[in-house]
């Protein structure tokens, strides 16, 4: 099991999601799915584009297609950052 994300890191991601989706920051929490936040497939792709810019990472298409929730985004970024640091 993945360790829980650092609260500060999770907060940064949530803020980014709120900013790109133009929704109140307090509505974006780790337990929310994209569906809860009215983030459809095109919104999701647009969001991941912003995530790639913010964290200087490349999210592969197959990983992108599996991301469906705020937690998926946070954990996915952590995994990619860890891989980047390790490489």
């Amino acid at each position: 099991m993945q360790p829980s994300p650092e609260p500060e890191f999770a907060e940064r991601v949530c803020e980014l999601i709120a900013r790109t989706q133009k929704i109140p920051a307090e509505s974006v929490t780790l337990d929310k799915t994209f569906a809860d936040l009215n983030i459809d497939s095109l919104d999701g792709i647009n969001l991941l584009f912003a995530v790639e810019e913010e964290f200087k990472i490349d999210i592969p298409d197959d990983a992108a297609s599996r991301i469906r929730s705020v937690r998926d985004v946070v954990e996915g970024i952590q995994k990619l950052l860890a891989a980047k640091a390790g490489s």
Partner: protein
Amino acid sequence: MSARRVAVTGIGVVSAFGDTFGEFWSGVAWGQSAIRPMTLTPPGSVRFPNAAEAARFDPAKYFDGKHADFLDRFAQFAVVAAREAIAASGLTFDSQLGPRCAIVTGSSAGGQATKDENFYNLYALNQRVSPLTIPRVMGNAGASWISYEFGITGPVYTVSTACSSANHAIGQAFWMVRDGVVDVAVAGGSDAPFSVGFLKSWEALRVVSPTTCRPFSRDRNGLILGEGAGMLVLEPLEAARARSAQIWGEIAGFGMSSDAHHITQPRAQGAAQAMRAALADAGAAPQGVGYINAHGTGTPTNDSTECEAIRAVFGAHAEKILVSSTKSVHGHALGAAGALEAAATLAALRGGIIPPTANFTEPDPACDLDVVPNHSRCAEVEWALSNSFAFGGLNAVLAFRRSDLAEAAER
């Protein structure tokens, strides 16, 4: 007076298979994939490595001297395909026929590569922008050059409805011929999407396959971009018979609809509505349809939605329809897609050879129709549909009829 029946008497194609309809059909009929590693853009420019480029297309073969410089690749494709179609039809446009002929072309991206190159030169290299940029970029350039070359002076225009462009164009031209607005029409579509800027835009949308196009397969993972042009010559069936023209088949109906739903996500109701409209326009019973050339992009969402729509329209008869996506071999040529697929559908009906869905690996329960996996099928089919469903939710469906079977039924 009953409406005129409309025959196709000339077909021209530029595609990844080569610069002729014959090369196109001999590849498509047997499901030979023309998808290859990309060559027109620097290697590694984008994440996806493969496409169906018209890699051997050489403008110098078709345009003298400075002439080639005036046309973006998409317009060159349109002119070359139109030349082939018109030559095959045997028609010449004199002062009588020229004003009675229409040209309707479709293009999604127009001269985007010209725009990409000139804007790069301006922004990155601080160079001047070519005065030929506007005449090369405009979406109607292909239609205008065909008009100019052949002296066709009737209604000439271009429609741009993303991936449905060619079907909308052919449908409009079909209606004009059927209703007697014109006596001949040249109709089809062309696109040339291979510039780095445009490919990066497709990459960002995450819909292009990193491998190949596998429509209806469980492991399909996106579309493969293609390019080229398809052009058809349409005229009244009676006129075509009177002059003993070669008749490829009839365009019998056209239906269109809008999903009014989402800018990129398809909706089965909209697709079904367009198929029903095409059948009604043709006066065809759903049970008569034996083949559907599917939109079949190979994206997870398109293919399952399209199958749902086909089931909604045809009910139990859907089980008996052969449904194939020739994009599996010629790629998704965007605004040319419907025109390439019209050429394939006409050839399939006339020859009794149904082209397969190539690259098929394993069935997907969400696409549980007879998708003609990997091997072509012999079938005598009278009625066929060709589907185009565009981003923006715009659907355009053509209905085709095999003329000789229609005549046998009348006798």
